[in-house]
């Protein structure tokens, strides 16, 4: 063999080696999909990396394995990524994951596609669950998810500020009325205007804060105004957008007016921004999810431990107070090869004991009515403060009576995106309320027609 031929042969062997190595590496990539341990029944679940997902991953799944021998791999994945994964996996009828943590507004979307396992017969004591929590987990008369946690929007107010005698006196002098927790939108606006720009405990205050970022934040805040003003964004069968009714216009005008009293940069405010502002004590009031209170009671991150109190969303002109509801449910994939076992786990997660345990570990507000009087929760105090750790629960329970879900139809995510752009334009003064809502109506109707 000539030298050049030898070199060529060596090169070919080398190339073959590289190809083999690449093939091995690629087969390794395939191991990214969840694997089952041999001999042991394994479930694969995706949860939100919020506290209720972490509780499942760190405490409940290992406990379930001890009790039943069934291993549950819990992956924590962001909200958008869960939605994407569900759609793509379902389209491919993929059985990689058995259980999904689902934002309830996806129930109609995936329910319509027939991708979720009905759980009606699996849940033994439905009557203990908050009725609304079950209602939004149901599509086409089938329960497609077991409620895991509810978060109705509530009005937060800084109790230290509202109890401060100097503030009370100043408010009395300025408005002629006593400073009390606002019951109506008008009272709240008066207070927001009063507090805005005041200084309290060395912090310059803004009147209020809420999620306002484009995407879904501004829609979620706006919904609490809309519902309390009696605005219905759609006709009954979701075939026509009805955002230009007097109720919707009134709600939007009030929301838009109140945006002036939010902190700088509020148009970009997310849930975390509101939490930070509350922790710093730089806002007087807020519309925020009930569950978020735990963050302001965290002494390592908050200057306002024990200060924040809650009440229901102030009532609109007709006396109606109706919060926007946030809720996460646990659903089982129709394509799972272990639907029975997955259903058992989902039901177990929301047993009476575990509903309380999840809440006690910061995993969101309970979904069972009985949990709201559980001593484990009601008797807990904040260390070194004395305030009840779960002082929000009575308000959450009250809010759940009149709270309303996001428009419950399969195109809700697209609807949020569309409306969000127009709300962003309204709050930034790029468009008037009437013009913005008309444009939103037009865009939503176009989407519906497609």
């Amino acid at each position, binding site marked *: 063999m000539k030298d050049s031929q030898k070199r060529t042969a060596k090169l*070919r062997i080398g*190339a073959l080696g590289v*190809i083999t190595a*690449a*093939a091995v590496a690629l087969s390794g990539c395939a191991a990214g999909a969840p694997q089952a341990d041999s001999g042991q029944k394994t479930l694969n679940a995706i949860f939100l990396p919020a506290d209720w997902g972490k509780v499942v991953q760190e405490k409940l799944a290992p406990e379930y394995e001890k009790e039943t021998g069934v291993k549950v791999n819990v992956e924590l994945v962001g909200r*958008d990524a869960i*939605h*994407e994964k*569900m*759609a*793509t996996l*379902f*389209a491919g009828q993929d059985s990689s994951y058995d259980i999904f943590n689902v934002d309830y507004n996806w129930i109609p*979307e*995936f329910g*319509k*596609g*027939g*991708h979720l396992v009905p759980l009606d017969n699996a849940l033994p004591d439905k009557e203990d669950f908050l009725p609304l929590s079950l209602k939004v987990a149901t599509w086409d008369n089938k329960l497609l998810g077991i409620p895991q946690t509810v978060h109705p929007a509530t009005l937060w107010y800084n109790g230290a500020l509202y109890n401060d005698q100097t503030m009370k006196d100043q408010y009395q002098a300025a408005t002629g009325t006593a400073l009390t927790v606002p019951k109506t939108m008008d009272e709240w606006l008066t207070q927001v205007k009063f507090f805005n720009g005041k200084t309290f405990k060395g912090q310059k205050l803004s009147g209020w804060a809420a999620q306002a*970022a*484009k*995407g879904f934040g501004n829609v979620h805040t706006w919904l609490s105004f809309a519902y309390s003003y009696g605005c219905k964004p759609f006709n009954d069968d979701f075939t026509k957008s009805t955002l230009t009714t007097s109720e919707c216009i009134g709600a939007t005008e009030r929301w838009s007016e109140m945006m002036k009293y939010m*902190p*700088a*940069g*509020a*148009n*970009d405010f997310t849930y975390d*921004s509101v939490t*930070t*502002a509350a922790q*710093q004590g*730089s806002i007087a009031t807020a519309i925020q999810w009930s569950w978020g209170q735990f963050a302001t009671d965290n002494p390592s991150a908050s200057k306002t431990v024990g200060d924040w109190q809650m009440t229901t969303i102030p009532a609109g002109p007709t006396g109606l107070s109706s919060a926007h509801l946030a809720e996460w449910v646990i659903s089982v994939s129709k394509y799972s090869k272990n639907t029975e076992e997955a259903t058992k786990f989902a039901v177990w997660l929301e047993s009476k004991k575990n509903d309380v345990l999840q809440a006690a570990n910061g995993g969101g507000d309970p979904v069972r009515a009985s949990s709201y009087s559980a001593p484990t929760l009601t008797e807990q105090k904040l260390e070194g403060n004395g305030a009840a750790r779960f002082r929000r629960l009575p308000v959450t329970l009250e809010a759940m009576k009149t709270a309303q879900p996001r428009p419950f139809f*399969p*195109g809700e*995510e*697209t609807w949020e*995106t569309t409306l*969000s*752009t127009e709300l*962003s*334009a309204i709050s*930034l003064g*790029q468009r008037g309320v009437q013009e913005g809502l008309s444009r939103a109506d037009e865009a939503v109707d176009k989407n519906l027609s*497609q």
Partner: protein
Amino acid sequence: MTTTLTESRARKAIRPSGAPKGRRPKKLGRYLAMSPGLLFLAAISIYPTLYSLVVSFMRWNLSSGEAARFVGLDNFVGLLTDGLFWNSVRVTLVFVFFSVLIELVLTFGLALLFFRGFPGDKLLRALIMMPMLCAPVVVGLLARFSLEPTYGIVNQLMRSIGLPTTEFLGNVDLALPTLIAIDVWQWSPFLFLILLAAMQGIPEEVIEASKIDGASWPRIIWHQFLPLLRYPILVGVLLRLIDSFRVYDIVYMTTRGGPVDATSTMSWQIYNVGFRAFNISYAAAFSWLLLLLVLLAVNSLIRRMVARS
């Protein structure tokens, strides 16, 4: 037939031995060696690209559970009459034009500064490179925190020197320029690297000869550097151009297309349509129009640069 066979045998007979015999097996060997790579490329790139073209002529929503059906040009017609599409084209073109232009001018200047070398230049060069080493998602997150009006370091610094608090990401007029600035911050090092390497490759004799002829530095840069650097500039600009067209990460991490739709780039819109609404077919059509736009831009740039040279 007999004649043909005989002729063929005769041709083989007069060929020098070795050369013709080995050609076919050698060619075959080459193709065999390339085939895994080609198959891999076909599986992960060519097939999905062609499939997306097929999908763009269908109506297919991933979450609906309904089967895809052929709708011809409906998606393309829908896009071309969609205000959101045209807005995203405008936003993308503004973003691409300004980010690449600023990066080019800035890095050309920087490269001129560095190509002669000075004390501490290596350290500075390493520092300049650092943003490029960060993942775009991290850069977006950093920008979000740094530019936050109340607690962000940029606004704190601005306030400390008496400037007003500014909503960089929440202001309709500032959001897109801010994203351009973030992109310039992150990706200028890339162009800098290309231009610096190219400048350092210019023969010293060329510069010396120009100096002896009495040329000033600006004339040397204009008449010597720019013509000699034409192709490295072209390559760098093309790569940045293609990269800028598909900007998505920093939009996702900072503005999510807002405020209003001031930063809603084409890639962001494609994400919204494809992965929030799961309208896969509409998103596929959108992607093909983006590809067309990129090809048009790249092609016209190459033509201009080549024509000039």
